[in-house]
């Protein structure tokens, strides 16, 4: 059972084709991580799947339904998407921002019901920002702010959450905390998580399913055992990677890598290093 399927998906900015004829599937109830070099179309793909960008061609299926036949509110009840470095209006408190996550479930004037309040409380608690509830978002540090946005996505209460680099701005322990939080949500509440990650080792450690992209094309996908190989990393990142098994976690880890010299960087030419 797949949560998301794409069929022959092509995405373009103006006339510039970023992703072409992509068929991808995101398995339900699993954690999927998308890896790939800068400007390869990861964020673009995530946005198209999250219907922020209109694809030039092709169809996105959400739980088997064509996404174009759903209203945007219906989609928002099933899928939350957190873009990269969003900006809060100045003067808003953390509690107010997280409460915005309940928007797709509200009608009319939108008074918060008990149920809404509970889920907001829960989101604040699991992201450990309860103590900041009445603080103005502008006054938080980068890492705290990132957790506020994740809390907002959680408050949306969807089974599927897409995140574009949720660990940016976070220090080592918070990176782990956020990923473990998402891991627990996946294991305990069976939520489907899709995220773009830059850190290969974290991507491999937390993923059930990995997708490696280069120049808007899928190079490989499947479980980490299949994707985290020197051959594929060479093809995707143009690196010579040394992969070993993490003695503590048992997952595949890249402990050292070198750049491969004298290899032309086709992607830079085709995608123009675009990372929008």
């Amino acid at each position, binding site marked *: 059972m797949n949560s998301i399927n794409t069929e022959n998906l092509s995405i373009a900015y103006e006339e510039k084709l970023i992703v072409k004829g992509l068929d991808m599937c995101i398995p339900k109830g699993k954690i999927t991580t998308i890896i790939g070099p800068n400007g390869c179309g990861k964020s673009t793909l995530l946005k198209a799947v999250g219907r922020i960008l209109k694809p030039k061609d092709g169809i996105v299926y959400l739980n088997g339904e064509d996404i174009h036949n759903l209203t945007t509110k219906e989609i928002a009840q099933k899928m939350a998407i957190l873009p990269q470095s969003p900006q809060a209006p100045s003067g808003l408190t953390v509690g107010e921002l997280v409460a915005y996550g309940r928007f797709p479930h509200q009608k009319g004037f939108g008074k918060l019901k008990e149920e809404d309040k509970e889920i907001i409380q829960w989101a604040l608690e699991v992201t450990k920002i309860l103590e900041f509830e009445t603080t103005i978002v502008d006054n938080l540090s980068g890492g705290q702010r990132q957790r506020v946005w994740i809390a907002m996505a959680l408050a949306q209460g969807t089974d599927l959450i897409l995140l574009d680099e949720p660990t940016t701005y976070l220090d080592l322990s918070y990176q782990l905390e956020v990923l473990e939080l998402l891991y627990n949500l996946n294991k305990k509440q069976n939520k489907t998580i899709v995220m773009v990650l830059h850190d290969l080792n974290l991507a491999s450690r937390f993923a059930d399913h990995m997708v490696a992209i280069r120049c808007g094309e899928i190079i490989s996908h499947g479980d980490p055992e299949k994707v985290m190989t020197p051959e594929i990393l060479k093809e995707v990142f143009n690196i010579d990677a040394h992969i070993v098994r993490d003695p503590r976690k048992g997952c595949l880890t890249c402990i050292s890598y070198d750049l491969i010299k*004298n*290899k*032309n*960087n086709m992607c*830079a*030419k085709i995608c123009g290093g675009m990372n929008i």
Partner: protein
Amino acid sequence: MVSSNKTKTEIKNIEYVDKGRTWVALLIILLGLGFLFFLMAFSITKGSIEIPLSSVWDVLFSFDENNTHHLIILDIRFPRVIASALVGAAFAVAGAIMQGITRNPMADSGLLGLNAGAGFALSICFAFFPKMKYIQIILFSFLGAAFGAALVNGIASFRRGRATPMRLVLAGAAVSALLSSLSQGIALYFNVAQDIMFWAVGGVAGSNWEQIKIMFPWIIGALIGGVILSHSISISSLGEDVAKGLGLNTAMINVLSSIIVLILAGASVSVVGTVGFVGLIIPHLARYLVGVDYRWIIPVSAVLGAILVVVADLGARTLNPPFETPIGPLIALVGVPFFLYLARKERRAL
């Protein structure tokens, strides 16, 4: 080895784009200057009396005191064309600097409170000192413009000199509204609104050598200052934090830019009234042509601005002779369709 060659061509391509920009900018400046001189000469021949182009040449090299054509050229048309070019360059560069510093595509010199200040001074002159001489009125207007700018800057940097672009923009809008309302009130109460309007739409019609003697060194000096600052303005347009990180003294740059804008726009506003659209549209056009580097935007803006105002002034004199068509609206009407086109074309404005 094939692949390594490819990398090299790619690098060359990148350099080529960069150099291409430089050449485009240089070409625009040189061709623009040539075109500007031709236009100025052509503009001198037109008006209520047609004068052959050769006379323009003669005035420069074999001036004849008894030739009426020569006198018209020297006393009336020359100063007028020179004033147009100066004012155009000044408005355009002032606008470019304002947009770079505030990072707001809606910004122009009017935002510094200059136009409103000059208008305020003008209404006081007309209401209380109706017998003032022409040159005195112009000086008064300039003082008004300076007053407006000082007010805006003072309020924006009230606290420990923190004049962030946002505060500057907001203070500018509020001060402008305040001063222009005051002058509207004075004008209506003392019944001089119509006189002020006729003065304000007069454009460069009354320019004479006396004015140009005063204006010329200031505007040229400020234009050079703008070019010198242009690199810092490029850095500044990346945002305050990045600019500071790159070692720029942002507060200093803000103050210096404000002074340059004041001289450029203040002098122009007091001579021709508010010809707002030049400062708004020319920087956008320059950015469209030569990219986001203010080292090119500023000189290109100066040339294009001068051309625009010289053309507009030509139109003002020849569209409906012997009457003058007001130059400000003329520029706006020409500029609007073009600006609309740019607005559709541009993905990002800054």
